[in-house]
């Protein structure tokens, strides 16, 4: 008896308990919905059978159904573009700003803090603000561009099928830059200053120092920022709801929004689940990369 109690105080019992808690939490709040979602993707589910168990299995029918729809390929490409461009631009701008604020000029920390204002705003609010900026007939952006003579005619940012997706991307980049900047600033601050001093004494110029010291030392941070960026971008839903609703004609639709539309607007919940299963698979892949890159950090 005493042994068991002791083991709970500091021993294998205590460790097991901690692990059990974490595992239990994971199974209940992550594992169960995941499996439930996976099961639904193989069933014929609608609104009224959602809470019952009377749902016939249909094999891969849902997968075939949704992937053979004419809009599927375009929406897939949009998702790739949305994630690719957003993450690349957020990283580039975020990194540039982090390097800039690393220069320690007066007021740099204060200014850096100001950037976070955009990040803490709810995406739906950001979406509403951007929808005023991007509005076609009376939008702020069109007004500015036209009064500076940069534009002849109004651009219909949200209703022109060639532009709509990029409008959402612009808003999303704006939303994601502060997060990238802060994480990368932390990484930059962690690089010992004497390495730079030594390199400078050896005659390395700024560009050489960036490529031989900064980049390699930032590998772990960059890996983490990229994989988190991909995951956050794949989760981005509110901006689509606020700006274009995936339109016009799916020109700005992406998988995450489509999945919601299928499930909760068209009540094709089985088919909507298929999309989320595909996205989960992809996110697991990205998460693996993230875990690898943080593990790397511990070793270093």
């Amino acid at each position, binding site marked *: 008896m005493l042994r068991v109690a002791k083991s709970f105080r500091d021993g294998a019992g205590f460790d097991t308990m901690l692990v059990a808690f974490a595992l239990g939490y994971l199974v209940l709040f992550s594992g169960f919905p995941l499996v439930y979602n996976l099961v639904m993707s193989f069933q014929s589910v609608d609104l*009224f059978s959602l*809470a*019952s168990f009377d749902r016939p299995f249909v094999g891969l029918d849902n997968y075939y159904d949704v992937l053979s729809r004419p809009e599927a390929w375009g929406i897939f490409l949009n998702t790739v573009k949305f994630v690719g461009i957003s993450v690349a631009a957020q990283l580039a701008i975020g990194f540039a700003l982090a390097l800039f604020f690393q220069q320690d000029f007066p007021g740099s920390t204060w200014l850096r803090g100001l950037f976070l204002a955009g990040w803490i705003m709810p995406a739906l609010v950001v979406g509403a603000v951007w929808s005023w900026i991007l*509005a076609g007939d009376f939008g702020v952006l069109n007004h500015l561009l036209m009064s500076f003579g940069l534009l002849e005619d109004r651009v219909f940012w949200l*209703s022109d099928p060639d532009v709509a997706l990029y409008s959402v991307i612009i808003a999303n980049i704006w939303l994601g830059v502060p997060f990238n900047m802060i994480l990368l600033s932390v990484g930059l601050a962690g690089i010992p200053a004497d390495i730079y001093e030594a390199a400078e004494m050896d005659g390395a110029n700024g560009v050489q120092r960036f490529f031989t010291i900064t980049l390699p030392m930032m590998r772990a941070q960059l890996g983490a920022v990229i994989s988190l960026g991909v995951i956050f971008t794949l989760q981005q839903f509110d901006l689509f709801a606020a700006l274009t609703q995936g*339109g*016009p*004609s799916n020109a700005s639709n992406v998988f995450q929004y489509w999945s919601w539309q299928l499930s*909760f607007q068209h009540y094709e919940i089985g088919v909507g689940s298929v999309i989320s299963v595909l996205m989960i698979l992809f996110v697991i892949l990205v998460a693996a990369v993230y875990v690898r890159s943080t593990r790397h950090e511990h070793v270093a």
Partner: protein
Amino acid sequence: MDLKSVVLASSGLVAMATGALADQVELDLWTIDDPGEYHYVMADEFMAKHPDIKINVRTVQFEDMVNDLARGVATGDAPDITYIDNPEVALFASRDLLLDLRPYIEKSEIVDADDIFPGPLASVTYEGGIFGIPRGANTIALYYNADMFREAGLDPDDPPSTWDELYEAAKALTKPQENVYGLAFSAVATEEGTFQFLPWLQMTGGDYDTVNTEGAVRTLKLWKAFIDEGLASPDTLIRGQWDSTGTFNAGTAAMSISGPWELPRMSSEAKFDFRAALLPVPEEGAERASALGEGDNVILASTDNPDEAFLFLEFLYANMDRVWNDFGYLPASEVEVKDPKYPEIYAVFAESMKYARNRGPHPEWPRISQAIQAAIQSTLTGQSSPEEALEAAQTRIDKVLK
């Protein structure tokens, strides 16, 4: 009063209250109204007349109603009475979730199904049963800015009555340098887009089950011309009716296709002579059609108190004449509306109501509607020709209908 008598008096009150509660029937009512609007007002009046019935009113967002009801039904937590949009009646009726009111109506001295306008009545009829009573009705017509008509040299007493006239008027009224569009309507990829499109299709002989028609092609070509030629804003593709009529009220669109629900806002925002006309027809003498909106009061099959619930529906029906004057909906049956606000506009909508036709009804309505929206959007964005887009829509609709 000393302490003892206070205690005695309050325990007496408690006893009275519990006594009253014991034989009081409680009904749960879900609505899309906010406190102070239709269902709340009517429930209060009803409770004042029937102290033995208590109605618990709860507001549910319009977009969430179907989801919340489905969840409520699944968990046994559904209300007794609820309000649903008219295309959803078939969905719920087909799952045996709604009480068939036909036997109650046949016994009723207040509700007579023959008095309800055919469109609203058809929207609550499913396989021979009557599953709801329309709370009111809605439809669309053409609002126009008579001041702009005069400025452009058009006769405000002779609004466009055919599609060609509408197109010519829109052209004459468009002033790009002043940011004024000729026409505002909604082609958004939601139920509202379907709602605006169907009357055009129905006027040319098509309907939700036959969309690959000449008439539908003509409609989409005309709609595309409106947008491509700058007579309507490109944002028509992403704007709902409320927003598009907002541009009319602000004076940046000379005409707007929308419904009577806009009138309260229009009367306060629009600083010009606004009027309404029937929706233009394809050509002189063609069949008329108009959209049918507004929802229905239904009783769920799971209710424990169907008689009291029906009593409340009868009370609502008996007050049908107030829906226009007090609440801004058109009545769903012939009633005497004494001194309507905006008598001319009321006359237009009342006339339009005669041609109002259903969306569906079909239990899979959302999927049919979505196929139609896809055809509208892919044509207007130039991704496919109207013929191809409508053919694709027809294929999808056939799959749902079979």
